[in-house]
C-alpha cells in the first residue's frame, strides 16, 4: 500500500502506456486505473453480448420474445464468462505442465486468452453490416495498435523506469 501521491495516471494496456510515455508520463504497467478497467471491461462485454445476440437470437420472432431473449443473453454472457475463466485456467495448467509460461502471473495469461477469444468474436462482426461491423473493426484496430505499442515499449526502457 502506498500513501496517496499524484504521479499522473498509469495504465495496463501497452497502447495507453505508450501514449503516456510519449507525453512524458509513467509507462510502467499498473492495475489501478478504474477508467481503463471500466472502458475495456465494458467493451469486451459488449462484443461478447453482441456475438451471442447475433448468433443465437433469430430475427423472425415477436418483439416481446426478442426483448426477453436479449435480457436473457445478458446473463448468459456472464455464465459464459465463468465457464471461459475455468476453461482458460485448465489450458493454463496444461501449458504450465509442459513448462510454458511459468514465470507469468495466471491473470496475465488469462488476459492473453481473453484477448484471443474476443478478437475472434470481433472478426466475425466483419461479416455483419452497420455499427456492429464498425465495432468489430474498432476492436481489431485497437488490438493491432496495442501489439505495435507493446513492441515499442519492449525496445524502450520507459516501461521499466518511472516517467519524468
Amino acid at each position, binding site marked *: 500500500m502506498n*500513501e496517496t501521491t499524484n504521479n499522473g495516471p498509469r495504465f495496463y494496456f501497452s497502447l495507453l502506456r505508450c501514449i503516456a510515455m510519449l507525453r512524458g508520463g509513467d509507462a510502467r504497467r499498473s492495475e489501478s486505473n478504474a477508467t481503463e478497467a471500466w472502458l475495456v*471491461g465494458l467493451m469486451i462485454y459488449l462484443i461478447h453480448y453482441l456475438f451471442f445476440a447475433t448468433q443465437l437470437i433469430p430475427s423472425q420472432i415477436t418483439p416481446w420474445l426478442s426483448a426477453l431473449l436479449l435480457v436473457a443473453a445478458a446473463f448468459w454472457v456472464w455464465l459464459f464468462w465463468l465457464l471461459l*475463466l475455468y476453461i482458460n485456467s485448465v489450458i493454463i495448467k496444461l501449458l504450465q505442465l509442459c513448462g510454458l509460461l511459468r514465470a507469468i502471473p495466471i491473470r496475465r495469461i488469462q488476459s492473453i486468452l481473453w484477448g484471443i477469444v474476443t478478437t475472434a468474436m470481433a472478426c466475425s462482426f466483419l461479416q455483419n453490416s452497420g455499427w456492429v461491423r464498425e465495432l468489430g473493426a474498432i476492436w481489431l484496430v485497437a488490438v493491432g495498435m496495442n501489439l505495435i505499442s507493446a513492441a515499442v515499449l519492449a525496445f524502450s526502457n520507459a516501461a521499466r523506469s518511472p516517467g519524468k
Partner: protein
Amino acid sequence: MTTSPTWLRRFAVRGVFWRQYLDWATLNIPYYLYPVFHFFMTLFFFFFAAPARRLVLGHLTIILPGSSRAMNYLRVFRTFHNYSWTISEAAIHKLNKEEFAYEIIGADWLDQLGAAQGAIVLTAHMGNYDLGAALFAEKFHREIRLVRAPEPDRQTAEHLSASLEKSGEGAVKVDYNTAGALLSFDLLNALRLGEIVSIQGDRIDDDLAEIRAHLFGREVRLPNGPFVLAQVSRAPIYPLFIARSGYRSYQIIVREPIAVLRTGRDREHDMSEAVEKWGLVLEQLIAERWDQWFAFAPGFLAHERNH
C-alpha cells in the same frame, strides 16, 4: 429443525465455497474484467442473500428516515456492490500484492496509536477492516490482534483467519469473540504487554456481555468488552475505520481517542461516558457511509426497540 448436509453448507451464502472461489478468481481474473464480474456477482447475491438484504433494508430505513422503499432497494444493491469490491480487493492485496492507495484522516491520532504501549482499536463492520489491519501492521511494524464475531460456518472461519494472517504477513492474529472469560484475560494480558487489540464495536451476539447505547434515536445493545478492557487496562480506545474511496483506494479514518475513566465510584457510570462518545462517532460514520456498513447479520441496530 433440519440441518443441511455438510457438502451443501459449503455453498450457502456464508459458506466457504464462495471464499475459496474468490481466491481462485483473484488469481485468474484480468483486472479490467472486475467491474462486470462485480456487477453480476452483486446481482446474484442480491437475490440469493435474502436475509442480509432484508437486514440492510431495515437498517437503511433507520439511518435515512423518510427514504422510499424502492430507493432503499437500490441502496442495498449499492451496499452489496461495495462489499463485493471490498472483499475482492482484500483478496487482491493478499494474493496478488497489487498496489493500493490510501489517505489518512486523523494522521496525528494514527501516529499516536502506532506508538502506543497497549491500545484498543474500536472499529465497525465497515469498509475493509481486514485490509486495514494488514496495512497497520505493515506501516508501523507492529503486531495486532483482531477480535472478530464468529462465523456461522467453521470452514469459513478457518479460511478467513488464514487469509487475515497471510495478508498481515504474520503480524495479524485473529481471535473469535465467543462467550467465556478466557479470551478477555488473554486480551487484557496482551494490552498490559503493550500490544494493540482491534475489536468490532457495532454488533453483539446474544451470549455476549452488553451495554446500552443510543444510535439514530434508538436504544441499542453494544458489546461492553472493549470498554471493560479499556477501563481495567487503562488503555485508550482509538475509533478507526477503513473506508473505500475509489478503485483500489482507501481512507483510514481515525477519530479522537476515548479514555474510559476509572474513578472508583461507579464503574458503569464511568463506562457510559465512553460508550456515549463511541455511539456518536459510530452514528456519524454510519450516516456518512451507510453504503459501506456491512451489517449483514442479526445483532445490529435494526434488532433493538425504539427509544
